[in-house]
């Protein structure tokens, strides 16, 4: 299978990494275009509730700016995918009426654009052809690219995490129980997608995402789940203001750290597997969101995060073990299909409404997917 070239081939790997980081600073969901990088052009995207009109179907290789206007009634996202749903760039969290821009560098190849009204599902897709010369990358180049690629993904998530956590915290502080309940699983989505990065910062993770009973002696129970408990168990969040403040601070701190972090390819591979273990041990069992039962939001987010990590390694894996890539693609698709049965509106069926049989179906597909993804690390390491 021939690969689209994902990176300018003439630049040495190091200079290349520097360039892309400069780029990612601008495409982490921010509204401004990058200083220094002049986009070749601006491509308008009209994102509706049932439509996603991209103003171009064929563009030359280079850096492009997509200007995404949400003309619909639901919050939306916009993605540019390379083969196998490898995320080349994305803007999250575009509220109705807003316009946001995405700066993305696209080497020659076949891509897909997608709007995701309601922020769930495969989205409304259209093909996008990028013309020009494509060049073969060395193994080292494609692995170096993986780290940069994934960092770009993390930054897009942290931007949305910051915003959504702020909105959640605002609702909690305002005593808006229904508003906070609606925002809880959405803010967590961005968190759950990048958990392998978050876990690197050992002491912050438990403060943000610790479950009741996990705390050390004398340590307060803080974070998402503390507020979740108040929201769903008693519905009384009058004392939750300080916890909302604290959550927002901790998230800001971890976001600052995460944005600076690059994972090496082995960490990426292990992170992809770890996210699936999260699903198997926390989400399928309903342990993660034991008060709200919104575990399937986290399930979907872990799955997407795992896929993003694998896809960052894709250019390398395609060369090193194409059979494994095919198997992983198939099993991601099977798991998504299995999960897709439980979509409810813009969200998911609650965990406590799933039957044992339904949970078993989910569990089976995660088990199979994990067997495949667990083999990526060795392929990366045995290079």
């Amino acid at each position, binding site marked *: 299978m021939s690969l689209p070239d994902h990176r300018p081939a003439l630049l040495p790997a190091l200079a290349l990494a520097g360039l892309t980081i400069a780029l990612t600073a601008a495409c982490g969901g921010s509204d401004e275009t990058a200083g220094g990088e002049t986009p070749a052009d601006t491509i308008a995207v009209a994102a509706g509730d049932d439509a996603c009109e991209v103003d171009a179907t064929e563009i030359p290789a280079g850096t492009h700016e997509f200007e995404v206007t949400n003309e619909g009634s639901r919050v939306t996202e916009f993605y540019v995918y390379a083969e196998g749903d490898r995320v080349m760039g994305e803007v999250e969290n575009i509220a109705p009426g807003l316009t946001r821009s995405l700066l993305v560098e696209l080497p020659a190849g076949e891509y897909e654009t997608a709007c995701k009204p309601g922020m769930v599902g495969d989205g409304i897709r259209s093909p996008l052809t990028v013309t020009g010369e494509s060049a073969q990358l060395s193994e080292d180049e494609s692995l170096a690219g993986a780290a940069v690629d994934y960092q770009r993904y993390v930054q897009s998530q942290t931007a949305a995490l910051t915003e959504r956590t702020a909105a959640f915290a605002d609702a909690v502080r305002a005593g808006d129980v229904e508003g906070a309940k609606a925002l809880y699983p959405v803010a967590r989505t961005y968190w759950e997608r990048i958990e392998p990065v978050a876990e690197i910062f050992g002491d912050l993770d438990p403060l943000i995402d610790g479950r009741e009973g996990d705390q050390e002696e004398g340590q307060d129970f803080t974070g998402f789940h503390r507020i979740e408990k108040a929201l769903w168990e008693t519905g009384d969040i009058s004392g939750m203001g300080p916890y909302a403040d604290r959550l927002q601070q901790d998230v800001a701190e971890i976001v600052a750290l995460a944005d600076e972090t690059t994972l090496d390819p082995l960490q990426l591979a292990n992170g992809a597997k770890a996210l699936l273990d999260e699903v198997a041990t926390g989400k399928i069992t309903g342990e993660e969101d034991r008060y709200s039962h919104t575990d399937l939001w986290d399930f979907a987010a872990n799955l997407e995060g795992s896929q993003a990590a694998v896809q960052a390694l894709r250019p390398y894996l395609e060369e090193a073990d194409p059979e494994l890539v095919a198997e992983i693609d198939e099993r991601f698709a*099977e798991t998504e299909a299995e999960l897709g049965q439980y979509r409810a509106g813009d969200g998911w069926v609650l965990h406590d409404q799933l039957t044992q049989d339904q949970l*078993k179906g989910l569990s089976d597909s995660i088990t*199979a997917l*994990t*067997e*495949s993804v667990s*083999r990526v690390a*060795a392929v990366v390491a*045995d290079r």
Partner: protein
Amino acid sequence: MSEPTTAGEQGGLSRRRVLGWLGAGTAGALAGGAAGGLIGRATADDATGTVPAAHGAVPFTGAHQAGIVTPAQDRLHFVAFDVVTDDREELVEVLKAWTEAARRMTAGRDAGPEGAVAGSPHAPPDDTGEAIDLPPSELTLTIGFGPTLFTSADGVDRFGLAARRPAHLSELPPFPGDQLDPATSGGDLCIQACANDPQVAVHAVRNLVRLGAGVVSVRWSQLGFGRTSSTTADQVTPRNLFGFKDGTNNLKAEDPSGLDRFVWVDPADSGGDWLAGGSYLVTRRIRMLIEPWDTSSLREQEQTIGRAKGSGAPLGQRGEFDAVDFTARVDGGFAVPETSHVFLAHPTNAGTAILRRGYSFVDGSDGLGRLDAGMFFIAFQRDPETGFVQVQRNLRADALNEYIRHTSSAVFACPPGVRDDGDWWGRALFAG
């Protein structure tokens, strides 16, 4: 596999007993009501050279699958699977991978070519490792295909096998008193893992389950900790959880004509084109109501079974292997009550014979302080209808029913043995 394979056990097999068994012929038992072979059988006490638990390897290839007439090992891990793909090729790939892993593990080797500790440090090992340093422990792995593999419960022919389903392979009929849990019954595939070390059996199942990820999903599984039957003449008869010797009068390896008649599928039988040399496997998880049994009198217990609890002798006889005599009288009545288990199950009255290969289990307690214990009953036969079903129908009036409950049920067709290095489980079914 038609012979015991452990040297130690063969050493314990006396010519006298072999001859006795060869002469037995279950046909004779049917006609005459007394199995002549039983007479020559020495009691467990004088069985010489009996090895405590054998640890060698049982050959994986042969005309029949191992694990049927192989001397019943002490431990069981039985697992039933649902096939979760509709893709025939994927299923075939798993069957091939399973065959290779089974070939290795039954020889005492790791499940995969790299092994538990020799592979890449970054890769999950292709063997899970808990059997490192353990001998083969007579591990046998026996595969079976359930009716739903051929036609799913809702009538779909998922793998193009419907036309090859033998007439004898269908769900068992309901029996009075059944308390079956559908979740732990049935299955598209099964694997029976038997070994003399429980860890070896569990290791085998665990590694096969892993190899099947994405294609098959465990439907239910059962551990058994002690055999409740003998399948060769030289084995000491074990006791079941009711304290009775169990397996005394069983079809055994030394009776090839009985096996041909009652256990092995014949080429002329339905499905014989791929199943000849195979057998049908019936499982019943039977809860044994330990507490009421334990508080019943010894006399009541013996009248229920029809044999003496200590010696295992049929009531009215002296030695364990004395022939059952239903005409024998004690105190003016028949020695063996007409409602006793042995009376009703014996070939004379059941009109047939089966090879029993069950295991005791204790799955903890039931939340009411009672042991969740019983027998995981396994029977092999040439046709379930004239095997298990016929016997079980005859047990309708069995006094034992008061003390037992059937809680799960399954039936599988076990193909013949894997012939050689290139052969794989189910080849004749899928490739033929």
